[in-house]
């Protein structure tokens, strides 16, 4: 059996560090997900990409690439990225505990919440530093910037341009898994205040 005709498209998306999610509102992406998700196709594509040095990884309702050999990003860069994600994740989870795949929100909602929630506000202030924004940047812009970075990394997508509403994609679980995989030794856990 030959590789499906969408192989090029799949490669294009995945090799740029994006995800292919089942719950993407973009019909093109969710269709690609369905194509990969067919049992035999997955194996075929896995072998195909494996031959050119990419591993087609299967997450819970999403696909992504990882490199077969040593990653081209050094540890320092990975750490920096991961720490940024922890900050962003922590911020959104503070905004709403139920901030998971499928969640839908507008940046304005968060800005309103910042006005009444001091914890969230201080976290938003912290994000300014992470995203190298000026101290006087309005919260509105900070949130847009953070949300856009979430979209750029492929964890969210814009749902409605006019209302500026965004949707969290299933790839968000990748972040959650990453956090779950990090182990904090028990004695360190005891040191951390509640």
């Amino acid at each position: 059996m030959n590789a499906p005709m969408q192989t090029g498209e799949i490669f294009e998306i995945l090799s740029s560090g994006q995800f292919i999610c089942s719950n993407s509102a973009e019909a093109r992406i969710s269709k690609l997900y369905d194509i990969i998700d067919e049992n035999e196709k997955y194996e075929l594509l896995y072998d195909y990409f494996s031959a050119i040095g990419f591993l087609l990884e299967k997450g819970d309702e999403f696909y992504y690439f990882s490199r077969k050999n040593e990653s081209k990003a050094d540890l320092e860069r990975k750490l920096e990225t991961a720490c940024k994600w922890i900050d962003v994740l922590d911020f959104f989870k503070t905004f709403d505990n139920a901030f998971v795949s499928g969640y839908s929100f507008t940046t304005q909602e968060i800005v309103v919440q910042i006005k009444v929630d001091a914890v969230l506000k201080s976290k938003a202030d912290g994000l300014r530093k992470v995203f190298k924004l000026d101290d006087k940047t309005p919260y509105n812009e900070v949130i847009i910037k953070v949300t856009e970075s979430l979209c750029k990394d492929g964890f969210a997508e814009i749902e409605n341009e006019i209302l500026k509403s965004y949707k969290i994609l299933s790839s968000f679980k990748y972040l959650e898994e990453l956090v779950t995989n990090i182990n904090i030794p028990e004695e360190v856990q005891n040191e951390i205040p509640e």
Partner: protein
Amino acid sequence: MIAEMFEKRKLPSYRYDYAVELMENNEDVIRLLLSKNIIVQNGAYIELDNQFLNFFEGILEVNEEINTSYINENIQQVKEYATYYLQSNSEAERFRYLRNVKSVLQKIGRSTLRNIVDLNRNIDNAFKTEPNYKIKLTKLENYKRKLESIQTLIEQTERLLREEEETFFKLATDEGLKEVRTQLILDLTESRQNLIETRQQIIEYINQIKYQSKFIEKLKQLKYLRDQFEIKHKTNIREVLSHNNAIIFEPKPSYKLKLSIDNLGKDENRQLIIKVRNRYKSAINPTKQLAENLTSKDLELETVKEIYIDLHRVRNDFKQSGSDLFGFLMNYQFVRELSFEERVTVFCQIISMFENELELTDNYLKQNNIEYAVVYPK
């Protein structure tokens, strides 16, 4: 109005004014209801009397709370009536107890099913709408306990029907009772099956919440360590990341491919090349210099006056004069004053232009160091 108040029973308060407005300012009705204790007044607010509220909820089967004690009570009642039935001697009394048992049994079946429906809805609501994780978890744990008590009640009822009151059911040979009993057994079986489903659902919800709250706790710890700059040393994040070769960590690649020469030669790509070329040119050629605007002075008409000596006219005048050309020119009144040299030039010009019309003699005269031929008209 009562319907309206009943619909709003979940709101903390229903204002007296609203009621008056609703009754189109007819306060008599409200007063009547108040005097009959159907509604009670509490300051500016009124509410339905609790007894009536329960009655309506019971009739309409819309209760939200799950009441297991109610079923329990019913079971006790069945037991009591069954005992009375067995002890009673009069047929009429027996009939009355039998009727009571039947109605209570029917009630048990109905309220069990209703309780399960309510329970399902409450579980769903708690899971989906309760924002506080701790309350959500406690609520679900409570529902789980309720679910278990409903289950025990079902078992109890079944025992009651099959074992405990066997004598009663055997002795009371009433068709209606048999039917009610069978219906109840069927209801209970259905309820039990429903409960199995509900139990799975609730366990799944609880697990999800536990996972989420555990996750959030972990995230908070990681964030704390990150803020303290200890994350690298106190967790295995380095190890986790060094094994993670996901492309997402890498900078976005750009593939610099060489252009296909063959393709560039094709006609359809010409437009594209021109477009690119224009863009490229405009990048290095900044603004073009424009000439300055014309001033009003530049727009003024400028004429150069040149005094033209009409040689033809000079010749005609000369022909009529009859004197020699040189002498004629020296005294001729030109349109402007001519110098001696200029007059000599005109002399030469006329000779060269109208040579055929003139007669050049061999006589030469001299004036101002210039020797000239004496010329007459022919």
